[in-house]
């Protein structure tokens, strides 16, 4: 126990500032963030057929440096609890129906962010017998975050961009 506690103290708080959109006043960043989020943002992630590279970076968002939950952004287990759907991968034909159903189960306003080059356009996997290409081929997409995979900072900036520019 002593070891654990002393290591916690030794590690300290590593959280780095969030990449807020340029228009945001930066005097109180956490306050500015809450203003954007309305205190909390719940995200449901769906892997629609990715190579799992993008998942690694989404996981990284929860590490102590990016500390996503500390900012009031949380990944939830059910689409019914979600404000935003974060979709990775080209949409594989075998995942098409599961993706549609997840989208249908979400409450309005159903924000959708497509993550990675594959989510944007199908990437290297393209349009084939097994891949439908980008997420927008299947469900409406509000914002895309390109990259292979995009860095955690880019993912976070993209998520914040999607909510600041959402239709009222």
């Amino acid at each position, binding site marked *: 126990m002593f070891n654990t506690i002393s290591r916690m103290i030794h590690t300290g708080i590593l959280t780095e500032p969030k990449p807020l959109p340029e228009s945001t006043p930066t005097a109180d960043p956490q306050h500015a963030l809450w203003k954007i989020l309305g205190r909390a943002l719940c995200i449901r992630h769906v*892997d629609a057929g990715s190579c799992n590279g993008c998942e690694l970076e989404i996981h990284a968002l929860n590490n102590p440096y990016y500390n996503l939950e500390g900012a009031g952004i949380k990944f939830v287990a059910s689409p019914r609890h979600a404000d935003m759907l974060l979709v990775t991968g080209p949409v594989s034909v*075998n995942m098409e129906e599961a993706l549609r159903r997840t989208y249908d189960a979400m409450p309005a306003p159903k924000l959708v962010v497509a993550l990675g080059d594959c989510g944007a356009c199908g990437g290297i996997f393209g349009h084939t017998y*097994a891949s439908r290409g980008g997420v927008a081929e299947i469900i409406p997409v509000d914002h895309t975050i390109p990259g292979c995979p995009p860095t955690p900072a880019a993912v976070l900036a993209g998520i914040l961009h999607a909510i600041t520019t959402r239709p009222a």
Partner: protein
Amino acid sequence: MIFDHLDRPMHIIPGNLPCSYASVRDVEWEWTVEDLHATGATFLTLWGTDDRDRDDPCFAIRAAFLLPSGVVILSHKIRDLANPSYPSIAQAFPAAARMERAVRDLLGISSKTIDQRGWLRHDAWLTNAFPLRRDFNFAAQPATPQSAPYAFVQVEGDGVHEIAVGPVHAGIIEPGHFRFSVVGEKVLRLEERLGYTHKGVAKQFESLPLNEGHRLAARVSGDTCVAFSWAYCAALEAITGAGVPARARGLRALALEHERLANHLGDLGALGNDAGFAFGLTQFSKLKEDLLRANVDAFGSRYLFETIVPGGVAGDLPQPAYAHLLYFYRVLEHEVTGLRLIYDEHGGLQDRFREAGLLRHDLAVQLGAVGLAARASGIARDLRVDHPWAPYDTLATQIVTETGGDVAARVQVRFREIFESLRLCRALLADLSRNSMQPAPIRGDIPEAEGNRLGIGVIEGWRGPVMIALETGPGGTIRRCHAHDPSWQNWPLLEHAILGNIVPDFPLINKSFNLSYSGQDG
């Protein structure tokens, strides 16, 4: 290698390991497979090709095995083009069963197995259409697939009920379906249904030029991008006889060990978390992020997707990276040593780890377990040790095995492999820095490849051996490329390891294997 039932010598084919190849006739296929089983060969992979456009029109089914002498590939030509079939090898090598189903789905050549359910095909393309055949017509496939129910094996009895999980899981994970039959909390049976992330990698390879294929190989399973892109490049380099500069080989191995470190660190954190010890996740995910940032300084990217290229590597280490990496390795070793002590001494954690998800040695051998999971059940196999390819031939890698076969053993293998990887990284870095003052080539030329050559690349990735079987076409094209992830062998192990455990332990047990969905779905 001479087999009792093979009366011809085998051909040598290009590969980063010694590779021999034999074309076998009908009964020889079965008998030679039995010979291989009797000699204790490790089954690597099974794939098929459409060779109906050749002078001798046929389908070919191929199987790769690992022996102390190297890789052995058997190729069986099937000349009945209307009803192509071949004898199953799943009796001797159970891991082949799902691969045989996949070959049937993609190529329409069928083993005489009993399981006729689709594996990679979920009603997405027509039953009589086979994507890997050369005359496959993409345009003729239905725009919206109709999903038909999948016949899971039913368990009957008093109080037995089913829990269906997936394909969309409750966390940030890849999609797959698990069907549990349980009594109360206890799991009586688990059946996996995978294939959800099948995105046609094998077919997509055929649309790429030979010198671009490594990019797709890196994306077969993103967490294993270095091993896959290396395996692809190794196959291509072996076919063309291209030389890889010594410096590039060292950098490749450094990248591969960094990939192993990153995944082991991530898993150790997640395993702590799945046992209710969030402190472990915080600490290990910090260390993993530190490593990824060190990768940016050393290689220019976090996950090294583009690091390994045909002929060598994309870039050299910048001068400041040597000191940074050495310092980082020292800190990492110190931190992991401390965290291991905390994990080892944490009663609650060990209570969850020990005896959970037990995979006994004899069962692991019987099922053909490979890689990390096999080493945790006492199977001492590691390509870096058994068949060291350059630069591992000079590194004397120490194999890490545990005999427990439970979650605790798989945790220990990861801890110990981190220390061994750090030792290798230091040795590689010392060698690279000795020669860092003079400019040295890091990328050799790739001569033009002849058509119709088969080459093999086998690399020990962090999960186990990944393999690429590359066949060249005319004019620098890919005729066929088969990418194999060790998750194929190890997914069925999970169905056994979970038996008798309780449902809430499943995430922990699953994580202790941490298998790739994308890698097996392809």
